[in-house]
């Protein structure tokens, strides 16, 4: 039986200031099926979805819902037509109850008052419809786990009688049992004729749940295949489309003596880091790999003095590290490039000079106790040149730069403090291929100059491509530490699930 097409995206293109981010992309979702949309970061998946939901306007191409041409103006408009998206970051009113969130904006009323009873019953019956039995509609959302909150979001989509539900990385913070539960719900939705668009990086999930797979790469449509015709290698080939070996510069650094020792580190508050021990050598690049929720960020934050440490010790050159607060840690020649560039990295409304000098500002205090603009200017000029930062001038606001150039400014800021140990948390997230290569090169050069680097990353090729050793974390514990030469993707995946 040939299934009816429910959502058809044809020839959609989109450019931002002359750069094509979507080029003639197609997607055909059939009712009662799960259609996976795959592609690396920056392949154009989220841009495509934003075009569908009217957040961006596509330059060309059309969207058809059940054969009818649609052009949604905003997510609400799409929702009313039965197209719903469950985002990675849930947009909910967490201080209110489950049922209030589901019926938000259309509360049932009786004689002018909100009909709490009907709201409760309707929520209950929705839950029954998709076989969820362990959520009380009157619970406050903030008391629920992320997975349950996500289910509430799916139920909300169902309550709008959604025909198309888009799940964006839905399993990124779920445990295995929770994933199974989600898959059950997806199966139920399939049987009820919904078309599901499933966006995920996780291969095993894609193969477990999809009927069809569409792959995008660098904004281009690569192809659509039924799942039976695919295997993991084929998908990877479609996604990557180029030889991995050319994406990374040769790793030429040679690790020396032990620089830092972390012994049985444990943090006090959730999400906790537990019993973490490892060594970092001089001139070494140590990768930390793990799934979302592996608490890698929490580990580097704990080392840097941003989290309360319950027990354990850190030694640098045999001396106990005082990391009671970040500025103490900085005095000990550590630096941290944070994961969330926008919220904890850049000073958005300040210029590049300020962003470059901010971690090292004491250096520029002159004899009068004032800051020397001249020195700051010349240091920033040097930094711009040596990091190859593309900017009109150092007076430009940092938010006007591309992600890659912003990241270079921040790395430059920390290099200016002349650190011995660099903690880089997802240093290449959301930046383009060229800038990534520059950053890899820089890391290797720094390691060659005797700096020790810890790189947290979720991208497996990158972690295999530019490190000397890899520490795999799983739910706050160290799963294992591998020599990069002997490591492969399979091992990393298995280890990262060790304590789930």
């Amino acid at each position, binding site marked *: 039986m040939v299934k009816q097409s429910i959502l058809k995206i044809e020839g959609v293109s989109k450019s931002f200031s002359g750069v094509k981010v979507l080029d003639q992309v197609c997607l055909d979702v059939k009712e009662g099926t799960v259609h996976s949309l795959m592609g690396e970061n920056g392949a154009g998946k989220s841009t495509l979805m934003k075009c569908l939901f009217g957040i961006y306007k596509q330059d060309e191409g059309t969207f058809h819902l059940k054969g009818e041409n649609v052009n949604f103006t905003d997510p609400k408009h799409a929702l009313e037509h039965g197209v719903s998206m469950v985002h990675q970051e849930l947009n909910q009113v967490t201080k*209110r109850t489950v049922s209030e969130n589901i019926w938000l*904006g259309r509360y049932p009323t009786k004689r002018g008052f*909100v009909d709490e009873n009907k709201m409760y019953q309707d929520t209950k019956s929705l839950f029954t419809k998709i076989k969820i039995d362990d959520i009380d509609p009157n619970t406050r959302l903030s008391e629920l786990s992320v997975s349950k909150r996500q289910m509430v979001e799916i139920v909300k989509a169902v309550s709008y009688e959604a025909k198309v539900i888009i799940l964006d990385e839905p399993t990124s913070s779920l445990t295995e049992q929770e994933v199974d539960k989600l898959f059950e719900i997806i199966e139920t939705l399939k049987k009820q004729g919904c078309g599901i668009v499933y966006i995920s990086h996780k291969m095993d999930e894609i193969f477990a749940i999809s009927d069809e797979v569409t792959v995008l790469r660098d904004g281009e449509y690569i192809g659509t295949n039924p799942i039976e015709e695919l295997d993991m290698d084929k998908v990877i080939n479609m996604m990557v489309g180029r030889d991995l070996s050319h994406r990374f510069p040769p790793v030429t650094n040679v690790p020396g003596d032990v620089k830092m020792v972390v012994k049985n580190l444990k943090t006090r508050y959730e999400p906790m880091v537990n019993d973490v021990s490892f060594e970092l050598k001089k001139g070494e690049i140590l990768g930390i790999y793990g799934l979302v929720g592996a608490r890698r960020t929490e580990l580097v934050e704990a080392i840097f003095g941003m*989290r309360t440490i319950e027990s354990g010790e850190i030694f640098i050159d045999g001396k106990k590290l005082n990391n009671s607060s970040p500025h103490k840690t900085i005095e000990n020649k550590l630096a941290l490039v944070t994961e969330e560039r926008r919220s904890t990295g850049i000073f958005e409304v300040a210029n590049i000079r300020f962003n470059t000098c901010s971690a090292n500002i004491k250096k520029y205090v002159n004899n009068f106790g004032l800051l020397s603009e001249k020195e700051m200017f010349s240091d920033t000029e040097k930094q711009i040149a040596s990091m190859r930062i593309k900017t009109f001038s150092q007076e430009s606001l940092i938010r006007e730069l591309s992600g890659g150039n912003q990241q270079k400014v921040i790395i430059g800021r920390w290099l200016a403090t002349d650190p011995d140990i660099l903690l880089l948390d997802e240093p290449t997230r959301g930046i383009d291929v060229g800038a990534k290569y520059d950053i890899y090169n820089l890391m290797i050069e720094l390691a060659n100059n005797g700096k020790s680097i810890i790189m947290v990353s979720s991208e497996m090729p990158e972690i295999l491509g530019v490190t000397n050793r890899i520490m795999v974390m799983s739910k706050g514990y160290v799963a294992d530490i591998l020599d990069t030469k002997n490591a492969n993707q399979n091992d990393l995946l298995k280890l990262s699930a060790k304590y789930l």
Partner: protein
Amino acid sequence: MNFTRNFSARINRFKKMNRTDWLNFLVNNAIYIVMALLIGIVILREPTFLSVRTLINVLSQSSVKLILAFGVGGIIILQGTDLSLGRSVGFAMVISASLSQADTYASRFYPELWLTGMPTFIKLLIPLLIAMAVCAIFSMINGYIVAIFKVHPFIVTLGMSVLLYGVLTLYYNSPEQGGQPIGGLSTEYSNFILGRIDSIGPLKFTGGFYIPYLVVYAAIVSIIVWVLWNKTVFGKNMFAVGGNPEAAAVSGVNVVGTFVLVYMMAGILYGLGGFLEAGRIGSANNSSGFNYELDAIAACVVGGISFSGGVGKVSGALAGVLLFTVMSYGMIFANISFEYQNIIKGFIIVFAVALDTRKYLKKT
């Protein structure tokens, strides 16, 4: 039956608490513990504090403050604040007083007021409605500007309070003889506000007990506000918009409309509060109401209506207002000097909010 079961369950929960639980319990209820301590100290110094008289005085002194706290409380739930409350209430007081003077009083604001000779009901209702309407309009302007131009409510209402003072003084100075305190309020008006209930049907209160009208009005307003906040679409939207404006907008809630309605409701309550306050004090002038917002906002935040938005309860506002009234009344009773009263009051505000915020703090 049900009650007993609940009660024993609670007792059991207390029995099971360990040290950290107790600590948490103490911290979470610290404000009530502090309140109990304060009352305890006052009683130790002045045992006569425990009396029917105190109860009645505390309740009637809380009444207007409570009404005002409900007004600004809604705005705080929308992650806002209202610095124009005081001037707004002052305007309402001046309007109400100017329209409610006894026709025997010599220097009247309106020597020839058309309300003279009307039935009592009209003579009371018209000033109240005008006061409410004026406050509602100015407050709605605040709401519009906050919602549409996304100016921080602190700024908008700061500006509005300055502007209101200007408009209010213009009105106050408008009589031929110039601005002078508006007194000599009519007996109908004073009785309506300062009157009391001595008996319900055949039941006569004894032991010096009576119910001031003001307390009755505050109780009625509390019930209405409770229903509005908890049982209507308006109330639910208010909490949703305050908790997460984007989520509310994506779900089709009219965010701007909600803002305007909440601010309008605040204005209506200020109007009512001002109408009652003028009668309670017995006169009004252009500096009436000054700084009233500070007490109202303090009561809200102490009562758990958080500045982060989206949370708050009618009972919380009530607790906050009562706390402050009991405190001031008790301290006056115990002859604690005005200076120390302020020091203690200021401390309580910061202490209470710090504890409250602690509940939402993410520990790292």
